[in-house]
């Protein structure tokens, strides 16, 4: 595809073709070459705490059962009966040791083995080798409660795939010795939006905040934007696509918004390098390539009142060209008290849930953008990605990856697009 072959050079010059944000051919490539290869997020361990617990999720258009088997092992399988393809698990969450197909009754253990076949003798005359017809397995890997799956047997380990980004994920995942848990099931909704613009936005688009969320400044949620808004760091893992934006506001107390006790905790759960950075971090907005994002932010439902630090984790699940479904969770520190968790969740619903005031505006912009990007004139246009091209990496940066000393910049995005191209353009 011409667009893609030229794209490599364009990115270096700070340009990305518009068409990739809403194009049927691109979607076909993404389904197999990208989502067939990467590690995709499936769920959080706290969603399936007990043996038999399961949730159903997706990798591209594949419906996946994520379950904890009877031995407590986490496993993932295609939610499709091997006999004729019926969907065997029809709920989004539940608990079951086995799945029985409602068409002809094949029975599978939640660990995938085919254990029951009616008429195995009287029908198949022993011809059917049950061991050959278990559920299609999906490789899983975990980091600090996050469960990922890949459809590629030859994919590198999750650890290698994350490539050091774990250092930054800890700001979301290790606020205390017991880590985090989901507050409850995720918000889920559909939108005519391309997943990639969301993933880009959450890998550190400090640029949009003062405008896309201008009401927030108007209502006094934030100090008036301006020069201070540009303070912070943008960090990415070269060749991996992962990236994070760290916003810093001078004068804010360290770890503002966290309860005392938790800040105490972190002294032990986090490394010194992490503490140095996270203490100064007001906002942390990052993306695990390709489509899992996080945001942590101090927020007070009523402007001016003391706030809490809420954390949202979101999966931008693609369902077609320029079409997606959203999963949005609120993560809370396991060690926080019920009241803090509740207040953090309320802040989340008001700001970033499906009816969240910030969420609303992002999706309006993204949906309009996606529609325009699909037009015939747009197909030959490029977008500028030239911010921070002259920036030198911070030399004494305590963490992995490449960090630049600025919050409003596009270094992260260029790496993200180069990585995307390395999959879709088959350069890997």
């Amino acid at each position, binding site marked *: 595809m011409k667009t893609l072959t030229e794209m490599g050079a364009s990115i270096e010059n700070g340009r990305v073709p518009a068409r990739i944000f809403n194009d049927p051919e691109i979607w076909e490539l993404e389904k197999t070459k990208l989502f067939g290869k990467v590690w995709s997020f499936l769920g959080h361990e706290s969603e399936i705490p007990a043996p038999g617990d399961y949730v159903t999720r997706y990798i591209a258009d594949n419906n996946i059962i994520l379950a904890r088997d009877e031995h407590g092992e986490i496993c993932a399988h295609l939610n499709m009966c091997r006999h004729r393809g019926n969907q065997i698990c029809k*709920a989004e969450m539940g608990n079951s040791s086995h799945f029985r197909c409602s068409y002809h009754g094949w029975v599978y253990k939640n660990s995938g083995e085919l254990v029951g076949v009616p008429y195995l003798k009287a029908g198949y005359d022993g011809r059917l080798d049950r061991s050959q017809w278990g559920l299609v397995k999906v490789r899983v890997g975990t980091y600090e409660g996050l469960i990922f799956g890949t459809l590629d047997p030859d994919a590198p380990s999750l650890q290698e795939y994350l490539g050091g980004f774990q250092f930054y994920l800890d700001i979301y995942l290790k606020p205390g010795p017991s880590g985090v848990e989901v507050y409850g*099931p*995720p918000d*889920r909704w559909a939108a005519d939006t391309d997943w990639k613009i969301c993933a880009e936005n959450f890998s550190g688009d400090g640029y949009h905040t003062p405008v896309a969320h201008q*009401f927030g400044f108007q209502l006094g949620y934030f100090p008036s934007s301006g020069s201070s808004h540009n303070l912070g760091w943008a960090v990415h893992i070269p060749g991996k696509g992962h990236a994070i934006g760290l916003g810093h506001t001078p004068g804010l107390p360290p770890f503002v918004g966290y309860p005392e006790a938790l800040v105490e905790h972190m002294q032990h759960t986090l490394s010194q390098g992490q503490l140095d950075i996270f203490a100064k971090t007001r906002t942390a907005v990052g993306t695990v390539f390709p489509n899992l994002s996080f945001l942590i932010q101090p927020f007070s439902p*009523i402007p001016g009142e003391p706030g809490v630090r809420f954390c949202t984790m979101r999966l931008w699940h693609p369902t077609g060209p320029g079409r997606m479904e959203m999963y949005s969770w609120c993560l809370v520190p396991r060690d926080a008290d019920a009241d803090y968790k509740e207040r953090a969740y309320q802040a989340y619903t008001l700001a970033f849930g*499906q*009816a969240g*005031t910030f969420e609303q505006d992002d999706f*309006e912009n993204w949906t309009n953008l996606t529609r325009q990007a699909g037009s015939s004139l747009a197909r030959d246009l490029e977008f500028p990605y030239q911010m921070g091209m002259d920036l030198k990496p911070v030399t004494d940066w305590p963490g992995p990856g490449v960090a630049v000393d600025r919050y409003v910049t596009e270094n992260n995005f260029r790496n993200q697009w180069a990585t995307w191209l390395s999959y879709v353009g088959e350069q890997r």
Partner: protein
Amino acid sequence: MTTVVSDLITLSVQRFLAEECLALDERRFRDWLDMFAEDGRYEVPVRVTREKDAEWQLSPRSRIFDDDKRTLEIRIRRLETDFAWAEQPPSRTRHHLSNILVDPGDDPGTYLVRSNCLIYRSRGDQAAYDIVSAQRRDVIREDGQRWLFVHRWAALDQSTVSTHNLSFFI
């Protein structure tokens, strides 16, 4: 066959709910807010697809809306700015309300009002539109010559909601 609640009350409550919808669809959000008691709550739980015999389908923890009158007022102040992009241009919503059932509430002077609401939403110059269906269970209270919402509880009938954002009220 006679209902516990007088026809007078029933018709008056039906009118109250219709006026509420009109306030929302005409974007008179301050009028709408005035229909809430000071201690009023506004709640929309998250729905999950579960098996038939599951303990719950509406999450006891996750909520789409979880507001008191103060946060509702924040949402409205936001809509009054020029920067609520989700509603720029304004959505054309129409709350089609039906199946209203009025019953005495737990507390004296309060009533439990159940209704169905089909919300039609059109935006911009797009011919495509959104429809969301909801069940509502409200608690209202007499306040002199008018009604006030003590609790608006609404549940959407989808577990994956088919609209790109919820910048309108249910």
